[in-house]
């Protein structure tokens, strides 16, 4: 279980890291916590000549809350997301979801940036960030640009980020209302068989805003607008929830694997979403 050889670099600024990516081209990759990349390198499914470690770049390590805006540096770990009280008060769903990722050892080192940049459909944060309608900032040789989480994912391991760009931060607006992250997994520490993130706002018993995203049920996260629309303007009664669940299950395209056949995954997806909607509603 030893990966192929590579040269190791530890730049101390985003600019220096981008320059290394440009200079070494195809053979170079960044490493954050390494808890997705190192397993792939051990299996020799990722082969690279230059490994660019982002741990020395302090600019990527802070959580900033200003007014209603939350900005999280790419190198903030899942452990730090869970511990941060300011973040919890702005978007408690992030802590709830992060606590369901992997195990304590993985959460100490696994970063938000690595989780969302990776492009593995099993990662929990991409769906969550779509639910929050977050935006990713990437920096490359031609400067920086923002990409909506909802248009970042193209296919498994293919994203809008170019190879010479580094994801530097993730931003979203604070979410009031009710929230829930429901995840079915085979055992603690496992990726989702199906997971669902839900945000709901209510006014006098009526749903005024809703957002839904699903994880590991297609080769990208799924954020079905029609499912959210089935809730908005309703009293979140049984018929509306069923309509939302049906719309969401129609929008996913799970593949059979060792977590189960397609029918099973669709069934579990429906249960996870229903639970998430009910719990978010109760909290709204």
């Amino acid at each position, binding site marked *: *279980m030893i990966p192929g050889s590579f040269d190791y670099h530890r730049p101390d600024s985003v600019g220096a890291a981008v320059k290394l990516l440009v200079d070494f081209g195809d053979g170079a990759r960044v490493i954050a916590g390494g808890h997705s990349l190192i397993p792939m390198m051990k299996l020799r499914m990722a082969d690279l000549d230059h490994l660019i470690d982002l741990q020395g770049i302090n600019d990527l390590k802070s959580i900033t809350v200003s007014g209603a805006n939350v900005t999280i540096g790419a190198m903030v770990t899942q452990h730090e997301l869970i511990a941060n009280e300011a973040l919890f008060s702005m978007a408690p769903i992030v802590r709830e979801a992060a606590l369901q990722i992997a195990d304590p050892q993985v959460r100490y*080192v696994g970063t938000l940036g690595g989780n969302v940049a990776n492009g593995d459909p099993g990662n929990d944060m991409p769906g969550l960030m779509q639910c929050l309608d977050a935006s990713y900032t990437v920096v490359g040789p031609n400067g920086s640009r923002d990409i909506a989480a909802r248009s970042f994912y193209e296919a498994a391991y293919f994203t809008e980020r170019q190879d010479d760009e580094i994801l530097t931060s993730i931003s979203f607006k604070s979410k009031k209302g009710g929230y829930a992250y429901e995840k079915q997994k085979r055992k603690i520490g496992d990726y989702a068989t199906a997971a669902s993130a839900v945000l709901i706002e209510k006014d006098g018993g009526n749903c005024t805003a809703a957002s839904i995203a699903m994880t590991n049920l297609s080769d990208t996260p799924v954020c079905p607008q029609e499912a959210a629309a089935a809730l908005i303007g309703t009293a979140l009664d049984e018929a509306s929830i069923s309509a939302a669940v049906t719309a969401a299950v129609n929008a996913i395209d799970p593949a059979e694997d060792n977590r189960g056949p397609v029918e099973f995954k669709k069934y579990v997806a429906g249960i996870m979403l229903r639970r998430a909607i009910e719990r978010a509603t109760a909290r709204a």
Partner: protein
Amino acid sequence: MGKMHVKLTVNGKQVETLAEPRELLIHVLRENLNITGPHIGCETSHCGACTVDMGGKSVKSCTVFAAQANGADITTIEGLGTPDGLHVLQEMFKEHHGLQCGFCTPGMITRAYRLLQENPDPTEEEVRFGMAGNLCRCTGYQNIVKAIMAAAAEMNAVKEAAQ
């Protein structure tokens, strides 16, 4: 790339060794530095037998490159107690039969050490959640949880007595 100088502080001692960047921290600890407390169970980031404390975090040293660890402060089971002066956790694992074959034990205790640093008075559920990255094939976990709860109680009693 050839070998690089990797400087570490391990159990309070500064050490330097030559390693290829692709070598894993667990191999450098065990093979270069002869620190064989942390074990290799799965080598695939699942079992936690290789857990060490690095910069105040429990990490699986089979999933860290030697190069990433360069400059880090590491504590292994060897740094927690000695045969003559066991750490409270070691004492309690012994007393409550928290081990059978013992293969998972260094990782369990090193992880439990950090858990109790962060949460000195955990509930049983918090212990189970906090220990979820460590697998044991023998004990069924009951006695591991008991041992950690007993260690927490003992450490708190000692702290109170000192006040």
